[in-house]
C-alpha cells in the first residue's frame, strides 16, 4: 500500500476480521484449557494433551485457526505483510480487554505499559528494511 492512499474498505474489513480472529482464538484457547475435565491444577504435558481430546471447545479453537489462516491469506493479497502485521498487533490490546471482561483476569498498569512498548517495538520491526521492500523502506 503506498503512502497516503486511502485504505480500501475490503482491506479494512479483512484487517478488522484478523484482529477479531486473533482475539477470539486466544480467549477460546484459554477457556478451553482452563476447563479441561479431570486435570490436576498443574498437569503434565501428557495429561493436558489427553484432556484436550475430551474438550469440545478445542473444535472452536481449530475453527478460529482455520478462519484466521484463510482471512490472513486474503489480507496479504491486498496489503504488504509489514503493514498488515503492524495493524493486527492491536490484538494485544483487544485480548487484554476481553480477558478482563470474559475471563475475569486482572490487568495492572505495568502490563499496559509493557503492551504499549511491545506495540511500539512491533511498529519499529515492521518499519525496518527488509529484502524485497521497494527502496528498502517500510510501506505502511
Amino acid at each position, binding site marked *: 500500500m503506498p503512502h497516503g492512499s486511502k485504505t480500501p474498505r475490503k482491506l479494512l474489513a479483512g484487517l478488522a476480521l484478523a484482529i477479531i480472529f486473533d482475539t477470539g482464538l*486466544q480467549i477460546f*484457547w484459554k477457556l478451553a484449557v482452563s476447563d479441561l475435565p479431570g*486435570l490436576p491444577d498443574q498437569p503434565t504435558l501428557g495429561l493436558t494433551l489427553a484432556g484436550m481430546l475430551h474438550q469440545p471447545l478445542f473444535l472452536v479453537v481449530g475453527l478460529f485457526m482455520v478462519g484466521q489462516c484463510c482471512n490472513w491469506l486474503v489480507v496479504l493479497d491486498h496489503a504488504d505483510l509489514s503493514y498488515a502485521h503492524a495493524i493486527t498487533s492491536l490484538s494485544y490490546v483487544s485480548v487484554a480487554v476481553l*480477558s478482563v471482561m470474559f475471563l475475569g483476569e486482572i490487568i495492572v498498569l505495568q502490563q499496559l505499559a509493557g503492551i504499549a512498548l*511491545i506495540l511500539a*517495538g512491533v511498529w519499529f*520491526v515492521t518499519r*525496518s528494511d527488509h529484502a524485497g521492500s521497494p527502496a528498502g523502506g517500510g510501506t505502511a
Partner: protein
Amino acid sequence: MTGAHFGVALVLAATLIEGFAQVFLKKAALSPGGKTGWRVLGFATFGVEALVYTWSLRFVAVSVAFPLGSLSFVAVTLLSRCLLRETVDRNRWFGIFLILVGASLVAGRA
C-alpha cells in the same frame, strides 16, 4: 519455581520453537530442491509450538501469555541472523529492544 513462572518459561519455549519453525519455512523457500522436507518440518514444529502454548495457558493468564508471544519477533530475528545470515538494520534492533523491555514488564506481572 511457581506455576506462573513455569508457565512463563513454557511461553518462552513456545516462542523459541516458533522461531525455528519460521526458519524451517524460510529454508523451504530458499531451497531449490527438498522444499517438501523443510515445509513438513516447519509445520510440524508449529504443531509442537501450539501444544507447548496450550500447556502454558494452564499455568498463566492469557493477558500475560499472548503479549509474551511477541518475543517470537526476537527469536525470529536472532535465528535468521545466526542461521540464515540475514542482515538486521538499526530500526529492527531498536524494535527488538522495545519488545524485550515490554515483554519483561508483562512477565513481571505473572
